[in-house]
C-alpha cells in the first residue's frame, strides 16, 4: 500500500523521529523521555516506513534483526542489573561513571544501559507486531 505523499513525508519524518528517539533515550533520565518512549518512537518511525513503502521493504531492511534485538535487549537489561552484584553485591544497585568531554560532563550509569535494553525490547517488539499484522492477507495465507 505505498502512498506517494507518504513516501515524500517519510523522507523528512523518519530521520527526525529516529533522532528524537536517541534524544529521548539519552536525555530520558533527567528530562521527559526514556527507553520505553524512545522505543515507541522508533516503532512509529518504522510504521511510517511500512505505510509509505510497504511491509516488504521494511522486512528486508530490518526483519531479520528484530528477534535478535529483543534477545540482546533483554540480555543487556539483565547484565545491567547484574553489574550491581559485581560492584556492591546488590542486584540492581546502580553504578555511575562520569565522563568529561571538555566542559560537558556525561553521566553514564547502569540504569542508562538498562534503559537501552528496555528500548531495544520495546522497539523490536512493537515493530515486529506491526510488520506481522501489516502483511497483506493474500500473502499471509500462502
Amino acid at each position, binding site marked *: 500500500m505505498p502512498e506517494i505523499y507518504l513516501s515524500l513525508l517519510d523522507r523528512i519524518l523518519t530521520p527526525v523521529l529516529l533522532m528524537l528517539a536517541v534524544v529521548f533515550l539519552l536525555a530520558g533520565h533527567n528530562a521527559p523521555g526514556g527507553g*520505553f518512549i524512545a522505543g515507541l518512537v522508533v516503532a512509529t518511525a518504522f510504521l511510517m516506513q511500512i505505510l509509505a513503502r510497504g511491509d516488504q521493504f521494511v522486512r528486508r531492511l530490518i526483519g531479520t534483526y528484530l528477534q535478535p534485538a529483543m534477545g540482546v535487549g533483554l540480555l543487556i537489561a539483565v547484565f545491567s542489573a547484574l553489574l550491581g552484584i559485581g560492584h556492591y553485591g546488590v542486584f540492581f544497585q546502580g553504578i555511575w561513571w562520569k565522563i568529561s568531554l571538555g566542559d560537558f560532563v556525561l553521566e553514564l550509569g547502569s540504569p542508562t544501559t538498562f534503559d537501552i535494553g528496555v528500548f531495544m525490547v520495546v522497539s523490536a517488539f512493537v515493530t515486529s*507486531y506491526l510488520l506481522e499484522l501489516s502483511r497483506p492477507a493474500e500473502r499471509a*495465507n500462502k
Partner: protein
Amino acid sequence: MLIQLLALLAVTAPALWLLKPHRWRHAGWLAAIAPAVVTGWLLSQLGAVSQGNAVSEQHIWSQALGLALDLRLDGLSLFFGLIIAGMGTAIAVYAGYYFERSSSLGYFYGLLFLFMTSMLGLVWADNLLALFVFWEGTSITSYLLISFKLSDNNALEGARRALVVTGLGALAMLGGFVLLGQMAGTYSISGLLALPASTFTSHALFAPMLGLVLLGAFTKSAQFPFHFWLPGAMAAPTPASAYLHSATMVKAGVYLLARLHPALAENPLWFWALFVVGGLTMLTGALIALRHYDLKAILAYATVSQLGVLVMLLAFDSKLAAVAAVVGTLAHALYKGPLFMVAGIVDHATGTRDIRKLAGLARKLPLLGAAAILAAISMAGLIPAFGFLAKELLLENFFALIESGLSQIGWAGLAATVAAGALAVAYSLTIVWEAFLRRKAELKPAKIEHPPSTLFVLPVLALTLVGAAIPFFLTSIEGTLFAAPVASITAAPAELHLALWHGWTPIFLTSLLAIALGGLIFTLRGKLHKLFASGPQLSGTGVFDGVVEGAYRLAGWSTRTLQGSSFPTQISIPLLAAAGVVIYAFSINLVADLRVDWNALPTFYEVVLPLLAVLATLVIARAQSRLSAIISLGLVGVVVLLIYVFFSAPDLALTQFLVEVLTLVLLVLVFYRIPNHAYPKQPKHRSLKYLLISAAVAVWGFGMALVAAGEPLFPLISDFFLLNSVDAAHGGNVVNVILVDFRGFDTLGEISVMVVAALGGYALLRASRMRPIEPEEDFEEPYDA
C-alpha cells in the same frame, strides 16, 4: 558425618546412572557399597546412642529465614535409619539381578538412591520444615518409581493417584507443622519435644493442628480410607515395591507419629483418631488381601493391614505399646521386604504372579522356597518367628488394658487383633501352600523358564535369616536396638525384658486361637473368595477417580460458562465483579470518609474535555462502520492525552500519544483482516443489557477515581521518590528513575514478558501459514523397559 552420608548417597545416584550398570553382570554389589557404608556407620553409633548420646549437626541453610538443616540421630532415627540403609543394601544387590542387563537399571538406581537420601533425611531431620522437604522428596521419587514403565497406563494412573493422595496429605501436614511451630515458637523437633506436652495438648488450635498432621501421616502410611493408593503403587518394579511400599516409605507416617508421640499423645483426640483409623485399616487390609490372586496385591494389602497395626499401637501412651510398635516395625520390614522380593523372583522366573498358576516352586527352587517359607512364618506370627514376638506384644498390650480397667477398648482391640491375626495366618498359608508346596495348580501352571541364580536369591535369604535369628538373641540386642527407640517414643528411659516364651499364658492361648481360626479360614478360602468377589467392592480408587473426574468436569463447566461465550459476555464478568466490589464498598461507609470539596468550581478544561470524550464515546456506540468507531476511540485517547498535558505530566502525555498512534494503526490493521460485514443490528434487550453493564463500569471507574483523589489510605511513597531521585539515582525525571532504578525489577519482568509475548504472538500470526506437523513414522517409544 550425617550430612556426608546423605551426600554420599545423593552422589551415588547420578554416578551409578552414568556408569551404565546394565553392562556389568554384578553391578548390584557395586551399588550396595554406599548403603552398606551407611549401615556400618549406623551400627557403630548404636552403643553411644542407646546410652542417650544423640548425634546432632547443624548446617545453616538460610540465616534470614531461620532455616537450618538440623540433623539429629537419636534412638528412633537410628532405628529407622538402620532399616532404611540395611534394607537398601539388600535391595541394591537384588535390583542388579532383577533388571538383568536391562538398560533401565541405571535410571532405577538413580531414583532408588535419591529416594534413599530423602528417606534418611526424613528420619534424621531435626526441623519440621526440613522433614517436610525430605518427605516431599520421597513422594516424588516414589511417583517416578511407580510410573517407571512409561508405556504402562495402569502404572501412570497408579503413580498419579499415589502422588495426589500423598501430596495433598503432605500439604495438609505442612499446615499442621506451621501451627505446631507457632505453638512451640520453634520448628526444631528436639526443641519442640523438650517443651511440656501441655503447650500443645491444651492449646486452642490443638484439634485442627492434629487433624492436619494426621492427614499427612495417614495418607503416607496408606491408612483407611486412603489405603487404596498403595496397591496401585504395585505397578512399580518389584525392588521398589519391596523397598518403598512396604519396608520404608510407607513407614514415614508411622515414624512421624512416633516422633511426635511425646508431645501430642496426651490428648484423647490423638488416641481415638489413631485407634479407630489404625484398627479399621488393620481389618480392611487383612480382609481385602484374601480377595486377590496376585502375589504382589496380596502382599500390598497385608502391608496396609500391618501399617494399621502400627498406627493403632501408637495411639496408646504406654511403654508396652511402644515396644510392640518398634518390634512390629522391624519384624514387618524383615518379612514383608523379602516376601516382595520373592514375588519379584517368581515373576522373573515364571512370568506370572498369579498364585492360581503357580505350584510346587519349593521343590524346584529350594533356596527361594526356604526364604519364602521362613518369611511367611514370621508374617503369620507363628512361634518362634520374629512376627510371633510382635504379635505377642500386641496382644499383651490389650490384656494390660483390660486389667487396668479400660476393658471396652481392650476387648475391642483384642477382638480386632485376633481377627486380623487369623486373616494374616490365612493369607500367609495361602501364599506358601499355593505357590510353593502344593503339587497341582488350579489353572494352567506356569513353567520356570528362567531359574534365578543363587546370587539373586542371596539378599532375600540374608534378610530373612536376620529376621529369623533376632528372636534368639533378644537379651543381647534389646538394650541397644529396641530400648532407645522406645525411649524416644515414650520420652522416658526404657528397660526391656523381651522373651519368646512366657509359658501357657492367656496371651499365648489367644495367639493359638488366632492361628486355629486362620487355619479354618485357609481351608474355607475358596468359598470366601467367591463370597468376596460377589460382595460390594470396598475400594477408594473409584471414589478418588470420581473426585478427579469431577474436578475436570467442574473446570470444563466453569471455562465454558465464563469464557466459552461471546467476547462481550466474557469481559462483562470481571468488569461487573469489579463494579460490584466498589459499589458494595461505597454502600457501607466509604462515602462518608471521602474528603471531597464539593463546592470547588471546575475549570474550563475540566468541563470541555470530558464533554468531548462523552461525545466521542456516543459516536463509537452508534458507529455504523469500524473505521469511524476506531477514529472516535482515538479521539477519546487524545482527550486523555490533553488532560495529562494540562496537569503537567509530559512523560505520560508522550507515552499516551505514541501508544494512541500505534494502537490506532494496529486496530486498523487487525480489522483490515476481518471480513468487513456491517455490524449486526443488536436486539433491544441486549443493547439495554450492555448499557447497564457500562453504567456499572462507569460507577466503578468514578468510585476508584474518587477514592484515589481523596484522603490517602496509606502513607504515600512518592515523597520518597521525589526526595531521592536526584541524589540517589542521578536522575531528574522521576518517572524514568522509577522505571529503570527504583522499580527496575518490575521493568525487567515486564520486558521479559514482552519478549515471551512477542515469541508467542509471532507463532500465532504465522500459524496460518504453517502446515500441521505430521508425526514422524518411525517414532520409537522414549523408553524401553
